[in-house]
């Protein structure tokens, strides 16, 4: 087990090296540059040259890259050219927001998706089944930004039931400990702050969770339909077990194996930044940070964020692989 984890973590090294080269090349290939973005379109060539010299952007690419790499291994990705703050600090402020949002979206997707998919399979061929199939097709097909605007317009603007932007009301002066706003509110017993941060998660969380929800419904349904025809379910029935036992131990448990893989992959995807959703809801997570940094040609933030997200993605997948072994003894890692 430990060897498996270590091996997977070692695999991170070539992944990160390759990714950093690609990133570096891609960013430099963008038209314009940080100087242009920072100083505006009418900046004089002298100003731009001075700016580049200041930030080391006048050096040959290879030197820039090695210098970047040397600092990156110490978790120093430089300072944001936009805010002047260290990239790592910005990341630690933004990432918790994305994690909270992902958790909300996935809890929503799993909590609704698995029961719905299971019911659809149980009532195979009924109106509920057809509705869930069509509904999930719609869910996958609806563009996220469209759904996000729709939700915001309806529930935040028209009805005013839920907040439609940001992570917290500005007027609430909450204490920050971990930058997980909901958690901070609970830790400091500022219940109104915790609740307020939570309500800010609802709309973007639903918008973000819709695609995973639709996928989970479909996979659960198909998987349950598969498993009920398995020989071992017939064996369980032949043993005269109570229907509830057959369902719980023999159907659901096996049917959830493929679902758990999907959940893992989707969680990884959402964690690496929901650019569209976060932008629509002006939600201060990593997604909106990346979006803003691209326009500002904020190389330091882009490089740092994307590399750290890659680490997060690999770690999430590692967790998924480990937990998969808990569910399915056949793939248990030793």
């Amino acid at each position, binding site marked *: 087990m430990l060897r498996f984890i270590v091996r997977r973590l070692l695999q991170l090294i070539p992944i990160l090296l390759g990714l950093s080269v690609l990133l570096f090349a891609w960013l430099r290939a963008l038209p314009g540059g940080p100087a242009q973005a920072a100083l505006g379109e009418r900046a004089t060539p002298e100003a731009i040259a001075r700016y580049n010299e200041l930030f080391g952007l006048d050096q040959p690419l290879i030197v820039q890259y090695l210098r970047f790499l040397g600092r990156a291994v110490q978790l120093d990705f430089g300072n944001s050219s936009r805010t002047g703050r260290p990239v790592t600090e910005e990341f630690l402020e933004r990432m918790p927001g994305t994690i909270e949002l992902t958790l909300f979206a996935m809890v929503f997707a799993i909590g609704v998706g698995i029961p719905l998919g299971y019911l659809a399979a149980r009532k195979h061929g009924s109106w509920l089944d057809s509705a869930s199939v069509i509904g999930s097709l719609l869910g996958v097909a609806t563009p996220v930004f469209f759904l996000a605007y729709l939700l915001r317009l309806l529930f935040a603007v028209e009805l005013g039931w839920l907040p439609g932007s940001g992570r917290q009301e500005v007027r609430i002066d909450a204490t920050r400990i971990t930058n997980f706003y909901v958690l901070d509110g609970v830790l400091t017993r500022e219940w109104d702050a915790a609740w307020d941060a939570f309500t800010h998660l609802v709309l973007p969380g639903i918008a973000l969770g819709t695609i995973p929800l639709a996928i989970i419904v479909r996979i659960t349904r198909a998987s349950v339909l598969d498993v009920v025809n*398995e*020989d*071992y379910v*017939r*064996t*369980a*029935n*032949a*043993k*005269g*077990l*109570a*229907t509830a*036992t057959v369902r719980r*131990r*023999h159907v659901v*448990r*096996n049917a959830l*194996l493929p679902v758990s893989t999907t959940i893992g992959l989707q969680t990884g995807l959402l964690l690496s930044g929901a650019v569209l959703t976060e932008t629509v809801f002006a939600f201060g997570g990593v997604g909106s940070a990346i979006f803003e940094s691209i326009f500002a040609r904020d190389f330091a933030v882009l490089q740092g964020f994307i590399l750290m997200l890659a680490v997060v993605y690999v770690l999430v997948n590692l967790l998924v692989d480990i937990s998969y072994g808990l*569910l*399915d*003894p*056949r793939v248990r890692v030793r």
Partner: protein
Amino acid sequence: MSIEDLPPHGADRTGQPVLEVDELTVTFTRRGEQSTRAVDGVSFAVAPGETVGLVGESGCGKSVTSLAVMGLLPRRGVQVGGSVRFDGHELLGASDRTLRRLRGADMAMVFQDPLSSLNPTVPIGTQVTEVLLEHRDMSRKEAVDEATRLLDRVGIPDPARRLKEYPHQLSGGMRQRALIAMALACSPRLLIADEPTTALDVTIQAQILELLKELVVDTGTALVMITHDLGVVAGLCDRVHVMYAGRIIESADRHELFARPRQPYTGGLLASVPRLDGPRGAPLHPIRGSARDVIPWAQGCAFAPRCDNAQDDCLTEVSGSTVPLEYDGPGRELRCRHPLSYPSTPAGATASGAAR
């Protein structure tokens, strides 16, 4: 008769059949398709301590018969008719609750493919104890002890360790033994074994059959053995029903059947088995055609298209009636108008091997 040869321990209603199947029909209907009758008027009975074989090629309806008896056929698209009585109680149309109480406790089944018949994500131990916990008043600990005893009894070495393992960690033979242990957990009065040895190699096959034989002798369980393998029949069954295209076409005592098969199909089955005591290089005699070359029973004998003895009156059109299953000497029934015949022999001669 061989029933008397096997004194069934613990069975007080000697002679009274445990299972009586009467005119069982199973019809599968699918929307937009013609319905198929997989089982067509099958009747047989099994007494305690008796082993009855249902023999036939793939698709002849033997497995469907067993599933119908257990009430394990899907509800949708299946019509079951006739009667299945367990201990005199009608099972067809019985409530799901009643059936669940009987299954696993009084009647149990061993399936053909042990790997797919076991849940891959649940330890063997749980799969054994769940039957005990469901049907017997046992604590978890008692159930685990009993499961250990059961695995030991079916010949699984180191049972305490095996209980914690998963199906994929066991060998094929051990998995089948584990399935048998589950079926035996509550000492059922009826055990249906659906080709329990097809997925196993020959030496393991022999061990499993030996195990089943011991069980019948030890516990007086009524055993229904479903197989296409005449070797299994020869080693195990007291009575044999040969099925073809959903109907029984010949029923006889095992020794009678092997010595003097009457239905040309049965004769063909026996002739197509290689024999060690035959002359070297003697050719095998396969039955010509395939199981698909059948005609519906309403039009005549379903086996007629493949039969060497077939004549015009095997067809309903010519004879004016379908071929009935008729009395064919003591303990024998036959569905055939032109059976294989044998020069008359003194009654005891061929049955000399009947006492085991």
